């Protein structure tokens, strides 16, 4: 009997502590900032990894879900509700305790939503958007999700760039910290740095635990089966479209959660987070990690993101990830990937059927 292997998760926990200690011993605690950010991006990447590796679908719009999470969290916790203070719904929400009263930088009184409410709204919105995209598209066999999410990503990017509410090209700044738990505030404040590092990595470990559980479960078995032969899977009573949809929504939620938390951590978000380059980067990181290997995806995802955040790739940053994607497809399109990317690419380029 095969028992589920949780050892690598424990290993990841050990790595977390080791990384912290290493920065302490070498006096490089400033690395913790990028390590924290890498963990949040890692969450996006493992979520996308399950979608690509196990549901056999590609999303080229995951930066869009990340951005929906981040932007809504930012806007709802910074945009002043004072002008609407007399509206019944604001008063109702105020009574429910989900509105914060404070002062803006000019000392004027300000009302905003609590980060918790913003977080719930942001993540739910991302999940619902994924549902709306996924329901019609995932009924079709083939790689139509790639095209739909490509369109979605572009639209989201344009919306955030165009709307004054979302700060146009400046994005949103001055996003407050998120008092998530009594002892934990998600914020970039120096005094919270170590705790935030542990929080982000713990979240990554828990996110990974959920995915490993899922893959090893009845539903995971169904996913793996339809990846290999959809016909035989459906003949066994498996509703392929429904499982693909659920995985897609789950991966969108992972991306949105990462978006919310990273935005509070950074104290802001800009339109580049919603860009196509970011979406392509996520796909590249999953591809290079090997799609059927969630651990490879996680290691590559967190590792390369860390290097990128440290500025190792300089101004070629986006180009590096594009190149990685091309190289992976050229040299091991099926070997590492377990997913036929070439027909998809052909489909995207010439519009033919895969």
């Amino acid at each position: 009997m095969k028992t589920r292997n949780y050892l690598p998760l424990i290993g990841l926990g050990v790595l977390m502590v080791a990384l912290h200690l290493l920065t302490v011993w070498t006096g490089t605690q400033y690395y913790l900032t990028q390590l924290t950010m890498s963990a949040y991006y890692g969450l996006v990447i493992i979520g996308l990894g399950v979608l690509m590796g196990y549901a056999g679908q590609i999303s080229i719009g995951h930066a869009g879900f990340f951005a929906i999470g981040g932007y809504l969290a930012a806007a709802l916790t910074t945009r002043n509700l004072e002008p609407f203070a007399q509206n019944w719904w604001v008063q109702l929400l105020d009574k429910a305790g989900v509105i914060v009263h404070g002062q803006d930088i000019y000392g004027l009184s300000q009302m905003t939503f609590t980060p918790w409410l913003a977080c719930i709204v942001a993540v739910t919105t991302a999940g619902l958007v994924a549902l709306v995209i996924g329901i019609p598209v995932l009924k079709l066999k083939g790689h139509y999700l790639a095209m739909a999410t490509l369109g979605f990503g572009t639209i989201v990017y344009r919306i955030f760039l165009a709307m004054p509410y979302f700060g146009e090209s400046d994005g949103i700044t001055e996003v407050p910290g998120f008092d998530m738990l009594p002892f934990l505030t998600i914020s970039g404040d120096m005094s919270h740095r170590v705790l935030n590092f542990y929080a982000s990595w713990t979240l990554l470990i828990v996110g990974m635990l959920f995915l490993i559980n899922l893959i090893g479960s009845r539903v995971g078995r169904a996913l793996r089966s339809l990846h290999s032969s959809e016909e035989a899977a459906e003949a066994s009573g498996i509703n392929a479209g429904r499982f693909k949809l659920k995985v897609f929504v789950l991966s969108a939620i992972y991306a949105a959660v990462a978006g919310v938390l990273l935005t509070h951590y950074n104290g802001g978000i800009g339109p580049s987070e919603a860009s196509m380059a970011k979406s392509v980067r996520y796909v590249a990181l999953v591809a290079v990690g090997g799609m059927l290997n969630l651990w490879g995806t996680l290691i590559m995802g967190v590792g390369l993101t860390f290097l990128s955040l440290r500025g190792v790739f300089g101004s070629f940053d986006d180009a590096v990830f594009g190149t990685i994607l091309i190289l992976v497809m050229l040299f091991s399109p099926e070997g590492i990937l377990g997913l036929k990317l070439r027909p998809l690419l052909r489909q995207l380029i010439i519009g033919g059927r895969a």
Partner: protein
Amino acid sequence: MSPKTSPANETMLELSGVHKRFGGLHAVNDVSFKVPTGSIKALIGPNGAGKTTLFNLIAGNLPVSEGSIHFCGQSIEGQKTYEIARMGMARTFQNIKLFHGMSALECVMVGRHSRSRSGFFAGMLSLPTTWKEEKAIRARSMELLDLLGIADLADTEATSLAFGQQRAVEMARALALEPKLILLDEPAAGLNIYETAEVARLISAIRDMGITVLLVEHDMSLVMDISDEIVVLSFGSKLAEDTPANIQQNEEVIKIYLGEDETV
């Protein structure tokens, strides 16, 4: 002869005036027949007669062009393959379709899908209820591998098994669904005479479990031995429907089979 569970006069599957056209090709032409509950019915005919196409229509993989199919008294029109499967119809494939990267046991466990229920979130959280169910799925799948005589291969990667063993895994996966009706597409193709005899014994055993069998097979001695009734298809049309003894005497059937032999 009489099955244990249901009276023999009930109809498990009924095709009435079924047509299937692929563009200009009339692959299935006005085919009607019934499969009585608890029986073994065979579907024979030369290559390209439309047997597999008929299976694909019955299992909901293809929509019919005309006519109707009733399973357990219910029309399957508009039903998805997985819905029909859940109603209690299982099948094996002529060109074996096992799952890559899965052990033989796991393949059979997939077959238990519609007889188990642990959902997405229960799976993610690995709730204790899922452990219990998983154990039951595993135990039942193991029993089926044992029934098919390949329990010792449970942990071997399914697609790396020998041909006959792969067919056995497919059969176990289909049985795992606890079907009322099982569609077997050439279960003895590529098997030697000993394995074929084993398959014949197995199909009879399946029927004795109360499962109705619809069988496509080229091996005539197998078909004649175990079937209650035979439908002969030729170029998409039904040529004859009778008992094995009568089919063997049927002039037209002899002609198409002899005719086929001559051209070979």
